[in-house]
Each structure stands twice: as C-alpha cells, then as structure tokens.
C-alpha cells in the first residue's frame, strides 16, 4: 500500500485494515476468553469481559456455508454469493467474489482467500475498498 492510498481510500468497514501490510481483517479479541468480534463492543458476549485486544484474522480459509442470493432488497445487486468463511477458527462473513455465482462453481469446504475491490469514489475522490473472498486456486483440492 502506497502512502497516497491512505489519503484517497477508506475501508468499507472499520475492521478492514488496508494500511498495515497486505489487506486483512482485524478483530476485537476478549482478553479473558479469546472470543472474537468485529463490531464496536460494550462487553464480551461470552464472558462479559471488558478488555479487548486487536488481532489480525487469517486471510486464508475454507467455505463453511454459502447461499447464492438471487432476490434481494432494493438497490442490492444480484446474483451474489453470500459466504461464511472459517478463517483458521474465526468465522467471517462476506461475499464470494471472482467466482461464478453458480452451484457448479461454489463448493462447501473450498479454499478461499481474502481479496479487496473498489466500490467507487465519492464526490471528494475518496475510494471505498471492500473485502470479499475469492477461490484460492493454489489450495483448491476439488
């Protein structure tokens, strides 16, 4: 990531880190029980602990579940693949991207990796960057 990208890019969600090495997700990990969360926290949902540390989430994982969404609310482009990815023990939701949204192309258990893409620039020229998961062909075993 180059320096000028920090000025003109914004992550789509707060837990996507674009400026610290390769893009990756950062979770709040409970210091008491190790439960991980992606949202702003009050306390830990598992143990009510109050202290969290930021941890990098694995960028490679396996497809734990999915649905190919063909009907959605207004303004949501379809079809897309809604995915649940097991990233080395931390489950993450996102879209499966760079992959045909068809049952022939998507398999439970397939190897995937984090990838980013642009959602376009706003009127100030700031580009929003989102993450998804793409087939990890190097690891694909099927």
């Amino acid at each position, binding site marked *: 990531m180059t320096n000028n990208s920090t000025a003109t890019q*914004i*992550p*789509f*969600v*707060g*837990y996507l880190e674009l400026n610290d090495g390769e893009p990756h997700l950062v979770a709040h990990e409970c210091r008491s029980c190790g*439960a991980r*969360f*992606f*949202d*702003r926290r009050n306390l830990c*949902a*598992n143990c009510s602990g109050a202290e969290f540390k930021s941890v990098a989430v694995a960028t490679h994982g396996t*497809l*734990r*579940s*999915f*649905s*190919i*969404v*063909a*009907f*959605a*609310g*207004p*303004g*949501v*482009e*379809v079809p*897309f693949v*809604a*995915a*649940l990815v097991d990233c080395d*023990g*931390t*489950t*993450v*939701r*996102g*879209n499966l991207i760079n992959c045909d949204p068809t*049952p022939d192309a998507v*398999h*439970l*258990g397939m190897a995937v990796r984090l990838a980013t893409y642009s*959602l*376009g*620039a*706003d*009127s*100030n020229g*700031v580009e*929003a960057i*989102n993450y998804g998961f793409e087939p990890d062909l190097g690891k694909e075993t099927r």
Partner: protein
Amino acid sequence: MSASEEVWVLGINMTKFGKYPDLDAVDLAANAVIAALADGGVTMKDIGVVAAGNLLGNGAASGQNVLKQVGQTGVPIYNVSNACATGATAIRTVVMAIRAGEVDMGLAVGVEKLSGVGLLGPGGQGNKDAGWEPKGRYGAVGGIDGRLGTQAMPGVFAQVGMEYLHTYGQTDVSVFARISEKNHSHSTLNPLAAYNKAMTYDQIINDVMISYPNTRPMCSANCDGAAAAVLVSGSKLKTMSLEQRRRAVKISASVLTSDPYQEACQVLPDVNTLTRNAAKIAYEQSGVGPADLDLVELHDCFATAELVHYDNLGLCAPGEAVSFFESGAPWRDGKTPVNVSGGLQSKGHPISATGIANVWEICHHLRGEAGPRQIEGAKVGLAHVIGLGSACGVHVLEKSSV
C-alpha cells in the same frame, strides 16, 4: 395455586391463512379470539390476562385495539414482540401468569397482515455521492446487505442448512426440495392452509430461485392470519364441565430460550443451540422424549431450516437429519410426522400468529378433530418456533386422559 400449577389449553382457534383484502389485522385477531373463547366455552369476562403479538402493524393490532372490539374488561395486556417466536411468546407469557398464581385464565393472540408483502429484509447500499462516512457498529460506509453476505432471511436460512451439510460432510442439496415436497403434499389435507397444492420435486427445483438452494416454494408463504388460545389453570379446569375437561389439552412443557454465545453466532445467527437447549428443557419438564411424539410442528420458515431442526429437537441422532428424512419418518405416515399442517412453506407464515397456530394444529390432532389429516391415536405433540435474533419457543402438549 402454586408454581407447579398445571396449565391447559381450554380453547384455541386459527383463522384460515390466506388473503383478506376486506379485513384488517384487528378483525382477524378478533375473529380468532371470539372463536377461541367459544371453543373453550368461556367469555372475555373469564379472562384475567391478555398477551398479544403483531409485528408489522405498528401497533394497529395491539391487544388494546383487539379488546376494543371484543370486550374492554380492563385486564392487564402484555403486547409482546419476539420476531417469528412472537406467538409462542404470547402463550409463554400467559403460562407464566397462570403458574405465578396471578390469574386462572388468560388469552394469547397473534395476528399479521402479510399477503402481498415482498421479501422481508434490508435493502439499500447508501449513497456514495454524499461522501463515504463510517456509521454504525461496524463502521461501515454503506449498506452491508449484499456487500458482506446477506441479511435477508432466505439467504440466512439457506446458509443455516448448507452449514449443516458441510458439518456432516454431505453435499447433496436435493434433500431440501424433497422436504418442501413433503410439506406441500401435507397441506393438501389442510383446509386452513394458504396453499393446498401438491408440488413435485421437479416443480419445486425449477420454480423461481430466491436464494440457493431455496426456491420460492421452499420459502415460507407470506399471508394474512390470526390465531388465539385460551389457557386455564389445572385447578380451575377441575371445576369445569366434562366436555371442557375432555377437550382441554395439557401444556406439559412451555419453554422460551434465547441464543447463548457460540463462536460465529454474531456472524451467522445460530438457530441451533437455543433450539437444542429449549428441547432439552422441554423434554425434562414434560417427562416426554422425542420417541414419544406422535406429531411435531416445527419452524420450517425455509426448507433449509426444517432439516436442522430434526436434529436440534432430537428427532434423530446427531448428524443424522438427512437419513431421518430419507427414512420417511417425517411424512404423515412415518414414525414422527413433521408439519402435517403443511408447515410455514404451504400453510403460511403470518409471523405473530405462527407460534399459536402451531399449537392449534397439535391440539386439533390430540382432540381427534383433525378430520382427513388426523394422525390416528395422537396423544403427545411438540410445537416449535424460532424468531431470528434469536428466540426459540417449544411447547409439549398432551391429550387429556378424561
């Protein structure tokens, strides 16, 4: 009365589910209440507490507005809201009031006007021209539906079913459409179902795809409907007529749970753990086991959901839901008939009415009044609902021995 006071269903009714262009939610709720009172042989003057559910009416069919049409007796009214478990929550509220000894008779009612309502779920992805600005608990600069997976119900529950297959190393998604085939077939015998049409496996998989693997007939049917139940304490019931005692149905277990923390439960709603917990408590409370159940109405809001609840309710051994279905067990002539009403996929799912209508279906069989779709000799049944977010209601019901 004591905390161990028995609670019985004295009168219960559901309207036909379907389209009611000329009736509003208050009319539908009032019709169900009037019929439930008549079914129990009592009037509003006998009712000591009311619990009412109506999610999408913005208060239009509050308990107060229903009583304004059927009898403003001044009793306490609890307007309850628990997503698709709202009806079961209304029943649970009345059960608690009776068990607490505050009243000896109460009314639960749920109603929804849903016909013509499209896909329930969020939409919109924000307006980038206004400037990307982080908002909400995820610091998202736009709407997340469709950008971070799906928040719409058909896709959420599709993932619930697909995750089950993945967990147990299975890949054949055809079981989901075959579950739907069963429920649509069952509904042909239910005159109160919104849809009474049998559908073949091929018709189901070739229908409009909503969220793979769920096609349209594999999704719960949006429709209008209401259901109401009059509950009575065991000691009050003892003072009532032989006919009332004979038709009364015992609530052997009444359980409501919420979702306990599990890894990933804030990523994809976990509808499994709270159902397993509710079932465990319900079997303990009632002394009834899954093998004793003559019929089950479970929350098949999508075909992909029905599969996981075979397992969650202990109807099969862990991981064996697919083979349980393939054995024919949940068909109406099988070992454990599931959703002989047609289920939410064909009977319909007017949200707040659903948790009471499921109990009505069980009562109908236990009373031996289900006509052509009667499960012969039914003595024990279980009604289950899930509200996403999540809430789970389980009621175990037993035939009167009078």
